[in-house]
């Protein structure tokens, strides 16, 4: 059996009942990094920095944390749901969805191409399995997640709704409407993770528009706040998400403030905002891939 197919089957089985060990998860993270780099390199566009920073989070969520059905029904009844608010990190989302069995990994090769289901930013419009809302225009995902969580309550569906948003994205006012609403209405089946990488297009979040203490703000808004200092450590992510899950149903929405390193896993993409929306050239790709050898087979 070819390596690729073997890897696919292995990871599709993870989605149902087989729990991978940390080493296997890290191998997948490394392969996801390669997918991200190769996807954005091919079309010379896309957002590798934030995608690399969240590779561990996505792998943890889809392989270890969420109960979900990769055969995919839009209504997602009786399964956990995930909404990506900062849609520009679509490369990591697509890679992990594909490697969790939602669609063929070969399709990653169509990222941002004409007639592709893998649009620059995620969309339901082309019918890509795993996507339940379009995102890209920032600040909208949390409201959608709140709505989905309210629907679960109406449907007596005990599963959890997860969402991820960027830290720069918190500058959008709609988020704060949603934070206020979720606390006031005890939307306690919702776990919202903020990717605190401290960077946005024009520079550091401190320089562009200082967010102050996000923890204090969310605490004051009535959320349970968990701080995850090492958001690139898959074990730490799994532990924090498990703790968050244990706190659901207590009358308060839960936020995880996850500190990540933008560009994680590629030394020259780290500690800078330069790779927010820039693709590597041929030499840079080669260097980046050399730091992340193939583990499960490239698409």
């Amino acid at each position, binding site marked *: 059996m070819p390596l690729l197919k073997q890897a696919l089957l292995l990871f599709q089985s993870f989605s149902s009942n087989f729990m991978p060990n940390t080493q296997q998860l890290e191998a997948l993270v490394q392969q996801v990094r390669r997918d991200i780099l190769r996807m954005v390199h091919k079309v010379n566009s896309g957002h590798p920095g934030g995608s690399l920073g969240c590779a561990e989070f996505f792998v943890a969520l889809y392989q270890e944390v969420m109960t979900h059905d990769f055969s995919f029904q839009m*209504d997602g009844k009786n399964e956990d749901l995930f909404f990506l608010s900062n849609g520009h990190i679509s490369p990591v989302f697509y890679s992990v969805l594909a490697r969790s069995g939602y669609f063929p990994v070969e399709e990653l090769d169509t990222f941002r191409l004409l007639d592709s289901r893998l649009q620059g930013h995620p969309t339901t419009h082309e019918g890509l399995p795993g996507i*339940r*809302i379009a995102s890209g225009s920032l*600040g909208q995902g*949390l409201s959608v997640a709140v709505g989905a969580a309210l*629907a679960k309550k109406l449907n007596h569906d005990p599963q959890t709704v997860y969402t991820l948003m960027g830290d720069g994205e918190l500058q959008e006012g709609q988020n704060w409407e949603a934070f206020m609403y979720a606390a006031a209405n005890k939307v306690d089946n919702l776990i919202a993770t903020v990717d605190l990488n401290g960077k946005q297009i024009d520079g550091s979040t401190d320089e562009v528009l200082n967010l102050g203490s996000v923890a204090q703000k969310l605490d004051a808004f009535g959320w349970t706040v968990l701080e995850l200092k090492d958001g690139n450590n898959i074990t730490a992510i799994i532990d924090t998400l498990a703790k968050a899950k244990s706190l659901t149903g207590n009358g308060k929405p839960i936020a995880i403030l996850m500190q990540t390193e933008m560009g994680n896993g590629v030394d020259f993409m780290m500690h800078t905002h330069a790779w927010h929306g820039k693709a590597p050239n041929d030499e840079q790709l080669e260097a980046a891939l050399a730091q992340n050898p193939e583990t499960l087979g490239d698409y």
Partner: protein
Amino acid sequence: MKTYINQGNQDTRSGFGVGLAELGRTNPNVVALCADLVGSLKMDEFIAENPERFFQVGIAEANMMGIAAGLTIGGKIPFTGTFANFSTGRVYDQIRQSIAYSGKNVKICASHAGITLGEDGATHQILEDIGLMKMLPGMTVINPCDFNQTKAATIAIVKHQGPVYLRFGRPKVANFTTEEETPFEIGKGILLNPGTDVTIVATGHLVWEALQAAETLEKVGVSAEVINIHTIKPLDETIILNSVQKTGCIVTAEEHNFLGGLGESVARTLTAAQPVPQEFVATQDTFGESGTPAQLMAKYGIDQNAIVEKVKKVIERK
């Protein structure tokens, strides 16, 4: 001239309230959201009967649109309620991305549309909302003309899969449509009065004005065909083209800017298929101001007198 009896003046927003209450009783998936305007939108009955299916979001319309989009994912059919201004312009990008582009089954129900909102003035009198909404791919745009039609439209849109913009108003106006004689069907214009000299196509509050204008015109020997276009998108092109084939000219009438409204959609249809002279009864690329609805309709040229004048003008151009 076919006569229609005013069963008593009523506001179209009350038609929405009654329709929504009925949906609450008949469709368990219907949920409602409001941004601090429950009384204005006449949602009290639905809320009293279905408290668990109502979401008061406060003065946060952007969040309301996002929550509505999310609720559809669990199979709910959300009806959002606020003024037309806050239902469209204020939240355009939320509607565009989270609802229209995402293909979500949200019913955006907008009261106090147009200039007849009256004394509150131009900050609240949106005259651009039809244009904003009809430009969104996949959005259905409906502007019913009276209490009964608004009630019927509210009930009808639940069966339509996809986003809908339902536009209605504040003032009490003639209530004259009936289920038997003028049944409501999405996308299907209603021939209210057959005529031979001119076609008058009207939407919303201007429909009753068009009927009054037709009566006036009859007295001076002008036979006006009056068509009620309640669904601006998708537009019933057949009923319009059939009519102008007979009359050879058309006046469109709406409580909206002439840019982006019903008139523009009709003009596009005519230029593509059968160009005839057209005159527009609409506001002329302007903001409104404070005043009573009747004063404002007169000043901004969107009442029965304006329709009569435009009919005379368009017939001269034939």
